[in-house]
């Protein structure tokens, strides 16, 4: 379970998160929607401590993420993250991309890491691209590679930061299909997304971010079909 309590985060003088409260249950799929600059992506970075926070508290399975004594490297193995920008390791094959962290961080054997990599690449539909380098893969394939790389750490949670936003429209579908697969498997997902129909279909709950706080949150179908708050209606009206 992830518990976010009154989190504030600033970049210099700009306050991006202004008191965020959120609880995510194990097995839940939560989608974060909202305008750009509303703080959705920043919140994801704060959950796995790639960004620091100014005040408040974030706990993951009872571990205070930002406490000085917390082993954040160990914590991050439980929190897979996939970014909007392509970030495959360019000098490694798809297989080596996925095998690196299990081998170095989890200290699995070479053979085990290799098997893990091949298993998860097949899982995301890249079983025939094991020896390809990222530059030989399409954007959609690179994102699926990034998903496989995160999954190979066997995380309890997946943090997805607009993973389809940098893709050509015809490639979005294949990545969403992969995400559907994850959702069906019961892994806990927090996804920042602009794919509203997708959020409606796979998410348990949807949270609308506005001006650094969660403006409205509710069951996916209710919030998207029948938003209560004026700002949410306005946002959904613009993008649907």
């Amino acid at each position, binding site marked *: 379970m992830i518990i976010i309590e009154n989190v504030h985060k600033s970049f210099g003088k700009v306050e991006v998160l202004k008191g965020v409260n959120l609880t995510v249950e194990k097995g839940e799929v939560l989608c974060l929607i909202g305008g750009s600059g509303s703080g959705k992506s920043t919140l994801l970075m704060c959950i*796995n401590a*790639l960004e620091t926070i100014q005040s408040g508290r974030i706990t993951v399975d009872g571990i205070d993420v930002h406490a000085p004594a917390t082993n954040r*490297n*160990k*914590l*991050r*193995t439980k*929190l*897979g*993250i996939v*970014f909007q*920008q392509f*970030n495959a*390791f*360019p*000098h490694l*094959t798809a297989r080596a991309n996925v095998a*690196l*962290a299990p081998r*170095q*961080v989890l200290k699995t054997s070479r053979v085990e890491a290799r098997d893990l990599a091949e298993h998860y690449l097949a899982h995301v539909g890249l079983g025939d691209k094991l020896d*390809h*380098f*990222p*530059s*030989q893969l399409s954007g959609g394939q690179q994102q699926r590679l*990034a998903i496989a*790389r*995160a999954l190979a*750490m066997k995380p309890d949670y997946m943090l997805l930061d607009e993973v389809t936003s940098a893709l050509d429209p015809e490639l979005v579908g294949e990545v969403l299909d992969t995400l559907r697969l994850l959702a069906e498997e019961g892994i806990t997902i927090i996804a920042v997304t602009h794919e509203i129909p997708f959020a409606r279909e796979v998410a348990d709950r949807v949270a609308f971010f506005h001006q650094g706080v969660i403006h409205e949150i509710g069951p996916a179908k209710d919030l998207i079909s029948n938003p209560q708050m004026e700002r949410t209606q306005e946002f959904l009206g613009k993008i649907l």
Partner: protein
Amino acid sequence: MNSFSPVFTQGDFILMLKGAGITFYLTLVSGLFGTILGFLIGWARTVKFAPLYYLLGLYIEVFRTVPLIIQFVLFNSGLAIFGLRIDPFTSGLISLSIYISAYVAEVVRSGIESVPPVTVKAARGLGMTYLQSFRFIVVPVGARSVLPAWTGLMLGLMKDTSLVAVLGATPPELLRASQIIITRIQEPLAILIGAGAFYFIMCHFITVVVNRYEKSWNEKTKVAA
């Protein structure tokens, strides 16, 4: 030499060949130590700690701006003043290493900074420590982008080794050996062309080795046709 000969002899050729060997040795050793030192300095400058950044920045500026020939003489005299007795050859080798480390440091820093932050974040996000992400991602990715710049430095270094002659370092490197022969046989053009050819061959050797290495990388990461 027991007899004076006004023409180019086999002994002269051997002297130049040995000189070329010395030049290559000076380049290799100072290139190695300069690269190790420069790597550490360039790396340290990417750690967000202002005093270190500026202090090492000063080091880089000093050794990149003061002419190498002055560095040779000052360093060698400095050693003598402090009572350290080091032969001119070793003194020259140390000066060269320090000199080239300043250039390497800037190349290394730009290499480290050329790695997209999101790539490093991805590595950290997988639970890798700073050192793991540095070793497995930042160094190999950054090295590929600055290899040509680094190679250029090493070629420049090879030509700069000729300046150790001001210390009277023995054995003579290629240019000094050539001058010795020129003084005797008074055939500067022919000898300098020969010396130039030696430099060309050695530099070309380095370029070929690096290019082959670079090509093996690029083939791996090339875009599928």
